[in-house]
């Protein structure tokens, strides 16, 4: 084999592998879209390009308060993002910049909290939610989601803040900035990429969460999207309305994809370049 043909084979192999990976990643979503277009009678016929039929989409909104569920999910996920970023940033400033006794112990405790399996905290969390009178209300979800979004927000932001040059902070101190001013006017703009990344991850985690959402809400009006989808039922106990479930899944996945596409540029960014030295 000449060198050229070998290179061609290598190329072909590379693209084949890439095609496989893309197929593996995209096919389930593609199949969901395809299924969402099919009426129940055709659900199990293999048809790769059915005509787009939106009947299932209308049905999802007609048969349950799905619009309300989406709004609930949006409220919960946004509140979780805002709260974790705000609390995480302040905590990260302290953990990253201020020396105090027990700092690393605290950091590892925070990391430890993120390792508890959800089931382990579920019953304790339930008692807490009841005690606070939040049962079957959205704040219960916001509160419980912070358990898993805060640890990684704090960790990621702490790492980023530690990587910022110390002289930058000192320059701000000499300029007369108080700690809160340093955080908001100097660090915050530089942490843009870190905030986008962690915010997005927190949003996705909150958007997809199922167990807490199932446990802490009761009525259909208070449900978030994942629970609502799981509880979609057909006309009889023996029928699973796959078409409706797929239509609902597609609708709640699209916002996530859009978000990732919007933020991907900000995530890859070196804003501090040029701050120090040349």
């Amino acid at each position, binding site marked *: 084999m000449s060198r050229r043909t070998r290179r061609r084979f290598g190329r072909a192999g590379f693209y084949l592998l890439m095609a496989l990976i893309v197929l593996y990643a995209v096919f389930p979503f593609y199949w969901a879209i395809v299924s969402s277009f099919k009426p129940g009678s055709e659900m199990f016929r293999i048809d790769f390009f059915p005509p787009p039929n939106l009947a299932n989409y209308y049905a999802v909104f007609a048969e349950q308060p799905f619009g309300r569920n989406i709004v609930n999910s949006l409220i919960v996920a946004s509140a979780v993002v805002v709260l974790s970023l705000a609390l995480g940033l302040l905590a990260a400033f302290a953990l990253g910049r201020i020396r105090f006794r027990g700092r690393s112990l605290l950091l590892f405790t925070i990391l430890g909290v993120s390792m508890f399996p959800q089931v382990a905290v579920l019953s304790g969390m339930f008692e807490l939610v009841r005690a606070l009178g939040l049962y079957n209300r959205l704040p219960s979800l916001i509160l419980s989601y912070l358990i898993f979004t805060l640890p990684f927000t704090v960790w990621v932001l702490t790492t980023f803040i530690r990587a910022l040059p110390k002289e930058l902070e000192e320059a701000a101190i000499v300029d007369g900035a108080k700690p809160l001013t340093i955080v908001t*006017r100097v660090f915050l703009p530089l942490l843009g990429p870190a905030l986008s990344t962690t915010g997005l991850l927190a949003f996705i985690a909150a958007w997809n969460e199922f167990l807490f959402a199932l446990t802490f809400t009761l009525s259909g009006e208070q449900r978030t999207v994942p629970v609502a989808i799981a509880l979609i039922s057909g006309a009889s106990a023996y029928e699973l309305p796959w078409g409706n479930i797929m239509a609902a899944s597609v609708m709640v996945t699209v916002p996530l994809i859009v978000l990732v596409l919007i933020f991907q540029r900000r995530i890859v960014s070196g804003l501090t370049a*040029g701050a120090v030295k*040349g």
Partner: protein
Amino acid sequence: MARIELAGVGKRFGSVETIRDVNLDLRDREFVVFVGPSGCGKSTLLRLVAGLEDVSAGEIRFDGEVVNELTPPERGIAMVFQSYALYPHMSVFENMIFGLKLAKTDRAEAERRVREAARILQLDRLLDRKPRELSGGQRQRVAIGRAITRDPRVFLFDEPLSNLDAALRVQMRIEIAKLHRRLDATMIYVTHDQVEAMTLADRIVVLDAGEVRQVGTPIELYQHPANRFVAGFIGSPKMNFLPATYPKGFAIPHEAVEVGIRPEHLRLGEPADASVEGRVLAVERLGAESWVYVDLGLDDPLVVKHAGMVDLPPEGTVTVGLPAKACYLFDRQGLSLPRAAFG
């Protein structure tokens, strides 16, 4: 404008004592350079004066007022950092006006001051740029500009030129000297480069291992170093040290001493009050002068600085003359014995 006094100032980090019992009296509008090898505590001392670190012992006074407990802005200092530490997300203009905004200075007045500083430092055309769009020298000027706008009592420079290339460093050195004459502020400048120290300073503070070794004008340090450390630190190439003993019949017989002599005072190839002979190890020709390394069988070679070119084959033998007047004597503790000024 401020007189700065340091009385018994010390600083420890845990069990490590970085600064020990420093006593200094810096005059109003003086340009003082802290110089010393890396790790000698010069930057820490500057940060103590700035208020970025708290002193562990002693007192710092500005114009007689104790400032130990005051924050940097309350002390009225401005500082230029080694890495410039410009805010990367702000334009040059915003960088320079940031401190004034925080101090709630009247907007028109603040803008006037920024424009004035920009004019002095020739930054007028760069005000809308971000730091990443500037060259190293321009960033340095912005850092200085940011300090000027605050109209500080005391200017602090922490190795401001060490990130610049050699040519730019000479240029900025001259600009800083001009700036000092223009601003009439007390300036403290930290560097490890003794050339910067010699050229800029009214007075130099030589530090070593957290202690002040000598304070004096550049010429005092050059002519009358208080000890072996200062003698070796000031001057380039550094002073040669040769072991010596007092001759028989002297008041202190056989006391071990050291003779120091600067490379520029040695006479190559001509005998003087005393002469030594050695093997030529290497010759470095710099054009206007040549540095000749002569092996005398000691740990370090003898360095001779000779004006103009020399034509010596390596490995050849050469005679070096030591004029007695140019020699320094150090006792066993490394302290200088008094001598008359020379050269």
